[in-house]
């Protein structure tokens, strides 16, 4: 890319800033990031820790001011009202116009509401942005009870936040168990039990019908389908997110749920690209989602587009899926794909669970070929690099078991549970021999080249 080109990015979330950083590493072009939420990039997943008082707002800002100056990346703290795609210019709220040569839309997402009666009452809100966080801090001062609508990852975060302030929390979950839209039953049961043990109430298989207010317009209770009325002074909405594309409606840009892109992040308009939460793939690969709304995928989109913009026109290929979260005290990691239920004739899994039900491991694989499909971990950490390698190289469960002792990433002195899993495995496959030599992580890392030579650590 030529130095005289001006790349403008809308949105300073992980997708937008990764793109800008990687582009800077590859090119001297002019780069401007316009974003309205905050002057500097913040870590969205860290919002909860500011509320709980573990950190201040400046602590969740991964790069200080001087960094952007040093990188010559211009930051504009403003809202983009509209885009003139013909003139290649953005209209900002402060009245100014900003011209671009290449435009990258990385506008992220906002909360989904389902038009419940009373959803505009005071004390009813979602948690996506910094402004939501500030609002939540004001709206929850001195309250006693709260209801969280939706049993997903943001829902449990909101519940934990409120609990940290001594608020009694009830979560309304449509399914039979917490997050059972994603977790197999055993994992979902374990997590559900843990949430209850931590003192958060769960209303399972129930839904909101109405949010009730008092005469001052503050939320007073939540009514559910089963006819219960849950008194509360705060209602958290955590029923999913949708791309931020309202300001792009009725333009030439092709949109659906999100901004339509191909695997080069090209939109329907030349020189306009979209990445991160707001992008929707036109033709996702089978089994892969059209919208990838994660921190990690946002970063990967940014990396991939920076290469594409600087002339390495490789289609984006995500590679093995991974994600992680935390359910109160239980860390969760997943690699590859573990569905919530499966056909026992086609798939099988090795599953181990700690008797006190705070830890679990599942290795999920194809019965016939033995090929590993996915891993679920609760309260146990595995090495991402090795799991990625297994999935990428289509290891069979038998090959995986040979390297299993090397995969653990738990803190030193922690009890190791891989032997339990191995025991199960040898019971199921009695004709398999234990490998003569144990692989250590360091040997494998070296042998399989699971490292990047480059090191800027100084």
């Amino acid at each position, binding site marked *: 890319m030529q130095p005289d080109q001006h790349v403008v990015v809308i949105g300073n979330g992980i997708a937008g800033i990764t793109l800008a*950083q990687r582009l800077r590493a590859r090119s001297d072009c002019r780069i401007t990031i316009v974003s309205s939420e905050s002057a500097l990039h913040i870590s969205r997943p*860290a919002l909860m820790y500011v509320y709980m008082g573990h*950190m201040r707002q400046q602590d969740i*800002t991964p790069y200080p001011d001087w960094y952007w100056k040093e990188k010559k990346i211009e930051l504009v703290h403003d809202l983009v009202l509209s885009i003139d795609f013909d003139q290649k210019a953005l209209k900002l709220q402060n009245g100014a116009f900003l011209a671009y040569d290449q435009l990258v839309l990385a506008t992220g997402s906002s909360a989904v509401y389902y038009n419940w009666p009373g959803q505009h009452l005071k004390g009813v809100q979602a948690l996506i942005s910094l402004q939501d966080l500030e609002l939540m801090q004001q709206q929850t001062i001195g309250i006693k009870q709260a209801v969280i609508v939706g049993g997903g990852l943001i829902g449990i975060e909101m519940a934990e936040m409120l609990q940290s302030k001594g608020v009694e929390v009830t979560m309304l979950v449509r399914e039979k168990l917490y997050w059972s839209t994603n977790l197999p039953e055993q994992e979902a049961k374990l997590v559900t039990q843990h949430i209850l*043990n931590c003192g958060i109430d769960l209303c399972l298989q129930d839904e909101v019908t109405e949010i009730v207010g008092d005469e001052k317009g503050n939320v007073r209770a939540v009514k559910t389908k089963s006819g219960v009325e849950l008194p509360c002074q705060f209602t958290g909405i955590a029923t999913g997110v949708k791309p931020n594309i309202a300001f792009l409606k009725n333009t030439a840009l092709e949109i659906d749920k999100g901004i339509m892109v191909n695997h080069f992040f090209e939109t329907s308009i030349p020189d306009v690209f979209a990445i991160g939460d707001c992008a929707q793939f036109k033709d996702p690969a089978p089994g892969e989602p059209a919208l990838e709304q994660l921190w990690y995928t946002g970063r990967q989109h940014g990396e991939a587009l920076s290469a594409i913009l600087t002339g390495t026109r490789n289609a984006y290929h995500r590679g093995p899926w991974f994600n992680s979260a935390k359910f109160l005290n239980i860390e969760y990691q997943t690699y590859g794909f573990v569905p919530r239920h499966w056909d026992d004739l086609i798939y099988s899994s090795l599953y181990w669970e700690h008797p006190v039900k705070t830890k679990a491991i599942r290795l999920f694989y194809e019965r016939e070929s033995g090929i590993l499909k996915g891993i679920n971990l609760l309260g146990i*950490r595995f090495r*991402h690099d090795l799991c990625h390698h297994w999935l990428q190289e289509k290891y069979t469960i038998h090959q995986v078991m040979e390297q299993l002792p090397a995969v653990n990433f738990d*803190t030193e002195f922690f009890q190791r549970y891989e032997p339990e899993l191995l025991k199960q495995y040898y019971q199921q496959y009695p004709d398999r021999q234990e490998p003569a030599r144990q692989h250590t992580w360091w040997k494998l890392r070296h042998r399989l080249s699971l490292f990047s030579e480059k090191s*800027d650590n100084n």
Partner: protein
Amino acid sequence: MVTTATNKLYLYFKYLGYTLLAISALCFLTTITGGNTINPVVWGMSGIGLLILGGLIAIVCSRLPKHVAHQNNGLWQKDLTSRGISAWALGILLTGFYILLYWFPETLQGLIVALEPFSQWLRNKPSDQWFLYGTFYTLAVMLMGVYALLKYRNNRYHLIRTCSVIFFQLGFAFILPGLLLAFNQPEFYFSYFWPLKYDYLFPSTVGYLIDNGQALGVFMVFWGAVLSFLATPVLTYFYGKRWYCSWVCGCGGLAETAGDPYRHLSDKSKKAWQWEVAIIYPILGFVIITTLLLWINSWSGGSLFGDLSGGFSRSYGFFIGSIFSGVVGVGFYPIMGNRVWCRFGCPMAAYLGILQKHFSRFRITTNGGQCISCGNCSTYCEMGIDVRWYAQQGEPIIRSSCVGCGICAHVCPRGVLKLENGPREGRYHGTTLIEREAVTILS
């Protein structure tokens, strides 16, 4: 399940604990100011008893009801842990105590007398201001050790490490030196070495130990030299700086226990790092040069450097030993964080740091592409290391200042960090799952 009723009970007991602590403070005040009108032993020992009892009750009742992920709740919102007025008040109180202890010990006479029977019993020697200091220091490590054990109760690394620092403080830095005195041997701290205890390798100390301790004295000199020049590089090669800084050292022990509520206050700015490098290595250099000069002087038998040893001990002891490690290092815990001395001043840390950075198997591995840049690790790094900087790029953290406390790994909500020892080959290599960039932070 923790019900509201039990929570209330915990709360009442917590207030009971605070009340006992307040009474204990009154007892100490009476001991100090009471003069001849009161019995200092009765008042002082009651103060200590109430301090232990009240402290334990308050600690247990504030830590136990909270589950592990909630232990840091409100740290940046409470006055006492976010440089509020009460934090300043505590800082001034601690600093004041150090000033009295170092320069006006006679004002603490009441407390010193209060410990007389205990000192006679343990050391067979009269109590003095340093015995007073040692007693309170050890008490602080033990009481706040309970705090750390409860706070990190799901993490074996921290349980073992905390027990280790309590053991070394109580056994090696308090009881053993006391017993040595009781048996008319030279007072010696087996858990402190040159260059932290710079004078342990000064000719004068060596001479004193050998003359006064005979065989045991020779052993002490031998022990000190072996630990400084052999054990330190070997242990640091295998385990990194942490074997000493967060497992053995008394300064580290206090920082990891009593200082734990203040670890997030460390300065993470680039400026702070520049200061760190600019101060700590010259201090190490100063200790090395002085030690060498003293030995040259002693071997040449000459009066080449005259009273250098005394002069050194006086000036270094005053500026570094007293002001830096005591007054600023501990007195300013509530304002500047718990490792100011370890980070900016300690010559042992500088020595270990060089070894850790260049001749060690230790590193903190970051787990592939899992970092969400939340910043918990950097916030809770007591050494002010921007751990997130490395983690979000998938690079191992190998920093000379890292004391291996392991708290960054503990607070990380995604389990991204792991302290480990592995082959030195490829130690700096990161993951292939994140693209990386070159930025020099220390420019």
